[in-house]
């Protein structure tokens, strides 16, 4: 068994349910945006009617009519179904779906690049299958959806539809449902093919060890213990007689893992709180861990016995209710593959356990992060987990479909495609955008950083306050404000990525899936409603 880790500084967050305040944030944001939308509509109507009073009257009327239509949407379900079926049929009859067979081509060649190491292999294959699905399905769906409504308008087929008792919102919703029907079908077929392929391509050893979905129990910050500077953390380090947030910095550039020194009193402490009843009928519980080994003295690796001696670790399990050590084990640390320690289930009877690790080998350091050690509560099927991964892709497609449908209510087909892709790409740079607007990313706005790049100026000193640079900084201010607004409107698509779980054999937490679903629904509902207001007040024959 190879232990694997999800790299995150606070793994228990993955399993936490949405915070209770979330709906309020959502409502607040939507309200603020609605006010902006209303003001924009008012302004446009004013420009058209040249009368503020009339514009106000018209806009309020449109708002109320719209709200009524939104509330009564379910009454139109038979019409929505008919429209959905139309979109579904359209995609099928136009034979666009054949393009999806392109998806099979890369599979013929993937084998060439297959890594040799077993843990690398499945990771590669899963990334590959997920990539093949995303990279084909997403552009194609954006293309299909973006062209749909504009084509209807341009070819006037929309005339015969809107002159029936169809509400405009039904047209949008029907379209989204129809397309999502197609995409679901295609996604399932692709997923099925991908899964068969994964099975066929992976080695027997991989299938034994990685073909699974681990359900880990991660350490959580305890209520009653803090570090010396009063931080509550799931993993704390004991150093110089104190609990601390960090261990020893061994000067590795990537400080994700913190180290403890061998043959000292330094130790690492994980705190576990869980429901012990889940282990009632179990003999033992596997504890999986992956530690990084850092050697200060290089030693002579060719010296006989150097490999065998290795780095040793002592793991102690302390029941925090009684304070007794309930289990301990000394073992040699595997650098890459990690270790599994089988602990008798009765050690976890209290549901409140501290795990203490010490490095026993002199001049060696062990590096560890909160998610590096976990109790393996359960193992689920790889297939089921793979399906959960598809759900995430599905959510992403839903989001893009809704964005495209909304954009296509006021943009031409081609522009809609560009627009939707822009949202998609910016969505991946969401963290970066937030970083820039909150000043965490050095180098300033777009123009300033271009100037720095051009003049080979470093990122820390201020620019010359010459005329040109001042203008550039002024423009940057505006651009930054724009980006700030964008950062609130563009969806953070990095959230919608769960392939890593599937690839490393961890069960995708339901809580994460739920939060993703809420995020997407919370995003698309206002987006589609915005599109509806635009569409309803658009002259379709002009």
């Amino acid at each position: 068994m190879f232990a694997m880790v999800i790299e995150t500084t606070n793994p228990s967050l993955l399993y936490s349910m949405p915070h209770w305040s979330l709906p309020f944030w959502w409502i607040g944001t939507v309200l603020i945006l609605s006010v902006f939308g209303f003001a924009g509509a008012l302004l446009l109507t004013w420009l058209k009617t040249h009368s503020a009073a009339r514009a106000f009257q018209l806009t309020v009327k449109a708002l109320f009519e719209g709200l009524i239509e939104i509330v009564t949407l379910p009454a139109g379900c038979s019409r929505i179904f008919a429209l959905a079926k139309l979109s579904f049929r359209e995609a099928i009859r136009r034979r666009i779906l054949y393009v999806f067979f392109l998806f099979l081509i890369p599979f013929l060649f993937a084998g060439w690049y297959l890594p040799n190491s077993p843990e690398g292999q499945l990771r590669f294959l899963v990334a590959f299958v997920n990539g093949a699905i995303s990279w084909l399905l997403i552009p194609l769906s954006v293309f299909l959806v973006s062209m749909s409504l504009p084509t209807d308008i341009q070819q006037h087929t929309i005339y015969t539809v809107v002159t029936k008792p169809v509400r405009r919102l039904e047209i949008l919703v029907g379209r989204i449902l129809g397309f999502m029907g197609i995409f679901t079908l295609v996604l399932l077929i692709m997923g099925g093919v991908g899964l068969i392929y994964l099975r066929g391509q992976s080695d027997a050893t991989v299938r034994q060890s990685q073909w699974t979905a681990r359900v880990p129990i991660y350490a959580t910050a305890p209520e009653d213990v803090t570090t010396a500077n009063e931080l509550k953390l799931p993993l704390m380090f004991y150093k110089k007689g104190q609990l601390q947030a960090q261990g020893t910095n061994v000067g590795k550039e990537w400080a994700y893992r913190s180290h403890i020194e061998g043959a000292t009193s330094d130790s690492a402490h994980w705190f576990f709180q869980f429901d012990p009843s889940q282990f009632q009928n179990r003999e033992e519980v596997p504890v999986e861990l992956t530690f990084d080994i850092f050697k200060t003295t290089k030693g002579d690796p060719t010296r006989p016995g150097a490999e065998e001696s290795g780095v040793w670790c002592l793991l102690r399990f302390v029941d925090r209710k009684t304070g007794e050590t309930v289990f301990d084990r000394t073992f040699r640390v595997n650098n890459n593959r990690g270790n599994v320690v089988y602990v008798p289930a009765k050690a976890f009877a209290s549901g409140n356990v501290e795990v203490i690790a010490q490095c026993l080998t002199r001049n060696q350091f062990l590096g560890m992060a909160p998610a590096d050690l976990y109790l393996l509560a359960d193992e689920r099927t790889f297939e089921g987990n793979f399906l959960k991964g598809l759900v995430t892709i599905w959510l992403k497609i839903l989001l893009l479909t809704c964005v495209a449908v909304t954009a296509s209510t006021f943009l031409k087909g081609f522009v809609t495609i560009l627009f939707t892709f822009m949202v998609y790409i910016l969505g991946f740079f969401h963290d970066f955008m937030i970083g820039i607007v909150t000043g965490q990313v050095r180098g300033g706005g777009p123009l300033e950083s271009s100037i720095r790049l051009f003049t080979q100026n470093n990122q820390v000193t201020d620019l010359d306050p010459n005329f040109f640079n001042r203008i550039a900084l002024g423009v940057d201010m505006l651009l930054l404000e724009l980006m700030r607004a964008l950062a609130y409107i563009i969806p953070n698509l990095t959230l919608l990525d769960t392939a890593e779980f599937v690839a490393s054999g961890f069960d995708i937490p339901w809580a994460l899936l739920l939060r993703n679903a809420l995020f997407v629904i919370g995003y698309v509902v206002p987006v589609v409603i915005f599109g509806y207001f635009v569409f309803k007040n658009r002259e379709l024959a002009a």
Partner: protein
Amino acid sequence: MTTDAVIETRNLTKVYRDFWGRKKVDALKSLNLTVQRGEIFGLLGPNGSGKTTSIKLLLGLLFPSNGEALVLGKPASDVAKNERIGYLPEESYLYRFLNAEETLDFYGRLFDISGKERRKRIDSLIQQVGLNRARKRVLKEYSKGMTRRIGVAQALINDPELILLDEPTSGLDPLGTREMKDLIRSLRDEGKTVVLCSHLLADVQDVCDRIAILHQGELKELGRVSDLLSIQDMTEIKVGGLSDEAKEEIRQVVARHNGNLVSMGHPSTTLEDLFLKIIRESEAHPGRRYLPEREGEQPTEPPVSSN
């Protein structure tokens, strides 16, 4: 106005503007019209005179720049009125990947009709427009005339009270034209109201009860077809079964009045004559309502209402 008005427009005006709001075309200028329940009303005018624009305004496909339109007592922008309206667009803009049955099924589902009723109507409409042999073929393969027919069937799927037909006979062969006219008359006989627009004078002359003539977005003439086409200073008499003495007597009467009897009655001009006359008149005096050479009997402005 009377409660039986199915369509009422007041100062209905449409200016097409470009993206920046600059004026492109004055497509319709202050149209006042009333269409009564149960009549066949024709909108007549040369290409580009604003017929299609008027119909689109009535359907809410366009928003008026000024004025308003009431259709079945509701504002044109109200979706609910569409329950009782059928519309055949200028060209049948339908989904070309569907076949005839699927097309009617799709449009039928947009109404509150039971599945059974829908299937019944689909069958009878396909028969009625003569597409029985092509009912399983996709519209892509249809000829223009066939497309027109399925377009009409689509407009009638909800058994509408008011039917708006934009150039219903365009693309049809003479037989098809004939059938279309018969269909329109039979719709009136069922008590429905039909508004059609056309530049084909013969169609309008045959079937319409009343017509409005548009030119460059202005209403030029409005009235009953029979009235518009009668020549008031001529009398036409056609009598059967008169004795020779009686005929002689009539001739004498005519001679006494210095008449020259050709035949008796009001002979009709063709609509084409009237039409050309109006257009010439209109070009000579732009912006003025057509004044027929009938002595002091027609109001000039404003052209409200009906006979």
